[in-house]
């Protein structure tokens, strides 16, 4: 807080101390910093890289420039800045929805399409002379009504920058920000908590478009000139460089990058001809060796800011709204073929009572694939999967999960770079939040009776600020199991929950599974190799072999079954 107050005082005093020239220079950089903030949000938080932010900056600059010229000095023009920004934001949201719609693709496709869009926008601005003024751009744009002196424009930009930082700070603290950080590293896990990650990413891109738009809308009255270069490649590239060099992962990183590199560039560009080459080399070095950027170098000096405030008192999470009925699951003759390999071969099985069901079978029998089909991550070619009577085999994963299914993956996949508290919070939000709730930072303090009971059993779960990557393997398995339990699904899928655990840890996990089953009366399906565990856990056993159901029944039935013996031990038949 102290650092922020110092920064704000410095912002306010700068024109008085440094004079009008620097006020003018800085106000331009503030506008760029607002846009760079959006790049930091997409890249540093949500994990995808927009290479064409100039599109949104330029679009909004043209809109605001045209309106200022058309309706000179009407006071309602002050409304225009947010409107132009919203237009850019809406376009970004739309593009995000379109591109992220199916693939959940965050890699090259998204970046290349944004780059191509920016180049396209640059071409349109260049060629559409009647509206945009062509190559020379829109000239003689008047300032905002009543705010057209250099100093007034400075304060407008400064206030906009401060407000943008506050807004992004808010988002980073809210559940939305936590989910962005989570999906950047493990998108599949976030989907398995029932969140539509494609929409979350589209929202992130929309916010970044809004910020770029705000920058552009202020740029036009401030500079009095809008040219096609704003839309195109150069500004888009500069924004990425500033965000990276400043430090994309932190709120103030991109701001620092834009202000510092921007100021140095205007000071050095003409006198030092290798300046831009130097910046490109610095960028490569930062990407390769020091992703935290300049702001990461300040970390040692942050001690004086004092300790992080502890989390305030916990809030009770609302109960998950779902039908109290017992989960009913049916596989009806499900066929899955990938390439030439028959993964599931007319698999049929049904579960219609609570209890612990174990799925066993040799390697390649289709156990994990069965789970993948159930959660919609593997598509079946024929047959039906029903949950509570509803056919779910064509639903998207996050929708299937939202019906009341939870899943723990084979390899522990907790959100390693997030704190334990945030890991647990994400599980608690699953199935209990509406989209608007994701904007409320207080949801990070949620707790539930089940969580408290788990924390009593496993005190390390209460060690809120510890990062999950610091946990030992056994603790991670427990955390992963806790995450799967906390969303309180009616059907819980556990894939080898004891893999790689010591006998003692295994006993603990078995204990938790039994306890959760008795306490919650949920249906739990466990994939397990170890027959001794199956004997301890299972109320009912399914044996899979070559993608179909070989046998089912109680543990004793299975052990007496000849065909089961045959596949495990081998037989003459």
């Amino acid at each position, binding site marked *: 807080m102290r650092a922020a107050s110092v920064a704000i005082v410095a912002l306010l005093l700068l024109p008085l101390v440094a004079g009008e020239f620097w006020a003018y220079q800085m106000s331009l950089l503030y506008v760029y910093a607002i846009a760079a903030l959006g790049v930091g949000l997409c890249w540093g938080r949500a994990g995808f890289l927009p290479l064409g932010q100039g599109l949104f900056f330029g679009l909004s600059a043209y809109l605001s420039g045209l309106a200022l010229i058309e309706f000179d000095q009407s006071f309602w023009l002050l409304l225009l800045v947010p409107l132009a920004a919203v237009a850019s934001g809406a376009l970004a949201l739309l593009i995000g929805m379109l591109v992220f719609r199916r693939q959940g693709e965050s890699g090259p496709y998204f970046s290349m399409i944004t780059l191509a869009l920016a180049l396209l926008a640059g071409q349109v601005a260049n060629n559409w002379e009647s509206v945009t003024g062509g190559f020379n751009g829109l000239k003689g744009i008047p300032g905002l009504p009543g705010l057209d002196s250099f100093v007034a424009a400075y304060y407008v930009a400064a206030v906009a920058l401060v407000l943008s930082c506050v807004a992004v700070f808010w988002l980073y603290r809210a559940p939305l920000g936590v989910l962005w950080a989570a999906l950047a590293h493990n998108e599949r896990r976030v989907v398995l908590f029932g969140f539509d990650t494609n929409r979350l990413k589209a929202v992130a891109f929309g916010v970044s478009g809004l910020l770029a738009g705000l920058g552009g809308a202020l740029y036009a009255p401030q500079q009095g000139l809008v040219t096609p270069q704003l839309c195109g490649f150069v500004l888009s590239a500069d924004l990425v460089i500033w965000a*990276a060099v400043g430090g994309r992962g932190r709120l103030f990183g991109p701001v620092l990058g834009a202000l510092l590199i921007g100021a140095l560039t205007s000071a050095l560009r003409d006198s030092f001809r290798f300046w831009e*080459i130097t910046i490109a080399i610095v960028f490569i070095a930062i990407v390769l060796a020091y992703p935290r950027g300049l702001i990461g170098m300040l970390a040692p000096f942050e001690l004086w800011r004092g300790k992080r405030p502890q989390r305030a008192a916990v809030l009770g999470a609302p109960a998950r709204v779902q039908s109290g009925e017992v989960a009913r699951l049916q596989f009806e003759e499900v066929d899955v073929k990938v390439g030439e390999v028959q993964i599931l071969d007319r698999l049929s099985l049904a579960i219609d009572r609570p209890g612990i069901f174990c799925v066993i079978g040799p390697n390649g029998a289709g156990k994990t694939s069965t789970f993948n089909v159930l959660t919609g991550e593997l598509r079946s070619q024929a047959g039906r999967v029903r949950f509570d009577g509803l056919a779910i085999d064509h639903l998207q994963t996050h929708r299937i999960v939202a019906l009341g299914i939870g899943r723990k993956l084979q390899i522990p996949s907790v959100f390693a770079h997030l704190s334990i508290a945030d890991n647990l919070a994400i599980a608690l939000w699953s199935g209990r939040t509406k989209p608007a709730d994701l904007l409320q930072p207080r949801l990070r303090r949620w707790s539930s009776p089940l969580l408290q009971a788990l924390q009593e059993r496993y005190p390390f779960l209460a060690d809120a600020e510890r990062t999950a990557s610091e946990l030992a393997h056994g603790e991670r398995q427990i955390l992963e199991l806790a995450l799967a339990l906390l969303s309180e699904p009616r059907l819980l899928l556990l894939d080898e929950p004891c893999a790689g655990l010591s006998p003692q840890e295994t006993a603990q996990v078995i204990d938790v599974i039994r306890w959760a089953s008795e306490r919650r009366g949920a249906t739990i399906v466990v994939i397990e190799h170890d027959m001794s565990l199956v004997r301890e856990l299972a109320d009912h056993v399914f044996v899979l072999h070559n993608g179909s159901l070989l046998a089912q029944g109680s543990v004793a039935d299975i052990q007496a079954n000849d065909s089961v013996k045959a596949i495990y031990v081998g037989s003459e038949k």
Partner: protein
Amino acid sequence: MESVLVAQALNALFAVAVLALVALGLAVVFGLLGVLNLAHGEVVMIGAYCAYVAQTNGWPFITALPLAIAVCGVLGFVVERWLVSPLYNRPFDTLVLTWGLSLLIRKCAETMFGLGYKNITEPVSGTLDVLGATYPRYRLLLIAVSVGVLVVLVLWYARSRTGTRIKAMVDNPELARALGIRVSRFASATFVAGTCLAGLAGVLIAPLVPVQPFMGLDHILMSFFVLVVGGLGSVAGLLTGAAVIGGTNSVVSAISDSTGGYFCVLVLAILFLWQRPSGIHARR
């Protein structure tokens, strides 16, 4: 009338051939190593500037080819060794890194040659009669060279021991290493081959386009879309992609303008991303 049709057909063939030639280097690197080299367009640009250097020194055009292969080969080796190879299996970081590299190369070109457009004279001038249509000789030569390069490459990849080893490397690097194949050396060679092909393409297209530091952007985008549409890992994919993208671009550009063509290509790429993310000729 017939001659107009022939000319149009040759134009289309030319557009596809050039696009396939330019995309080839990217296809090799992206398809075999999984590295989307965003500096690919800039390597093409370097090739074009090699032609310019040869011209200003009064050397014959043909000398630009070894020059480009030398410059781009060394560049590819250095980049693979020290920048890209630490990042295999981290596609996102390679993307950002090669994007930074593209920036660096562009800035270097700006510093060395300035922002202005350079014109390269065609080494083979004049026209030739093809089925009644008069067509520039250099363009015909370029079509022939593209076809030749593709055929040689395909035959070599399908028949040679090295090609088989590269296939093994692509399929399963760990196993290939265990069998005594020097995977890191093959990866390096593949990357260098990709940059050399890009440089070669740059030299060959130099007389037909304005040579300037920003020319790489268009080439990387178009090449990337060719691979999106066609799919990775096969020559059929490369040609189909080049035909779809090149065809769309030239037809729509002819009807409206270059912005329209560009827009259609972009829409097409997004549609493919939805419906067929692994392209028309998917590897699997």
